[in-house]
């Protein structure tokens, strides 16, 4: 069973409980749901187009060849940048990291890649700005990049 189906089932059950308790509030909730959905879908389509562009122009072999041979501080920096740019749905991050590991990437580089691939995405920036504001988005992404660097460095020291 897909995670999305589980979430959807829970959502429907909660909606049922809500309807049972108070119809008027449930009606308001559904109105809010539609509004959120209508706001988010066009931005998401745009985000997916950006993802598609990266998919079309940057191959995974290229990424592996960039990250495989480098280690240390430079390796971590490269891995972070690649993680920010590359298109990866979270479930694809770890299999690809295993592939990087087999190609000679160090644990520090892999940690850096995992962190930025999950937490930073140049493709999701428009969405983050729309929902949480420019100031929040800029600060969060910069801090994440810097902190991920130091944590990756520590992990390299601990794991090797």
């Amino acid at each position, binding site marked *: 069973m897909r*995670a*999305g*189906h589980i*979430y*959807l089932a*829970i*959502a429907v059950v*909660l909606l049922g409980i*809500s309807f049972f308790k108070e119809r008027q*509030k*449930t009606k*308001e*909730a*559904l109105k809010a*749901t539609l509004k*959120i*959905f*209508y*706001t988010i*879908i*066009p*931005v*998401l*389509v*745009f*985000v*997916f*187009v950006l*993802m*598609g*562009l990266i998919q*079309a122009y940057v191959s995974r072999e290229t990424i592996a060849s960039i990250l495989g041979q480098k280690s240390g501080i430079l390796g971590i920096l490269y891995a972070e940048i690649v993680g920010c740019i590359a*298109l990866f*749905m979270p*479930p694809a991050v*770890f299999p690809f*990291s*295993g592939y990087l*590991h087999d190609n000679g990437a160090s644990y520090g580089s892999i940690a850096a890649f995992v962190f930025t691939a*999950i*937490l930073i*995405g140049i493709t999701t920036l428009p969405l983050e700005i*729309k*929902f*949480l*504001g*420019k*100031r*929040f988005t*800029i*600060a*969060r992404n910069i*801090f*994440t990049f810097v*902190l*991920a660097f130091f*944590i990756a460095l*520590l*992990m390299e020291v601990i*794991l090797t």
Partner: protein
Amino acid sequence: MKHLLKNNAFQYLSLSALIILTVYGLNAEKGMIVTITVYLTFFEILDIMIAVSIFIGLFQVWVKPATIERWLGKGSGVKGFAFVCTFPIFMGGSLFTIFPLLKTLREKGARTGAIASFITAWGGKAPLLPLETKFLGWPFALVRLGFVVIFAFIMGLLMDWVGEKPTKLA
């Protein structure tokens, strides 16, 4: 027409169409890859997006700001930090599925730092542990998870500091 041009949805969709058509014009094969990616990703997340939108709708009418304020607001202290640095680790989804939820939390009184900690802790991705351990081993996964909590905590402190500055860009 003027109204339509100023419409956000229209802007994003027309820009998307423009990019796809341009790539097609340059290289049909690459254009196909972009289109397929958009199509597949869209249907990949559609069910989760509908679920998240329903959660947010229910959340908006049922959860009182006072509750959020108590757990994630200014006075939430250690309890608030402990919650946002650990609980999101067990949630699933992609980055873009949690932003709308966080916007709602914020509007209901959550601190900027709590939101940032939430995103970082969410990056712990415990539901993906079977994959992580399979490809990178238990030592890597456990060390990373441990650091995620520390990472989330520091992010919270830093972003609270940013959030309290008076100037507003957004």
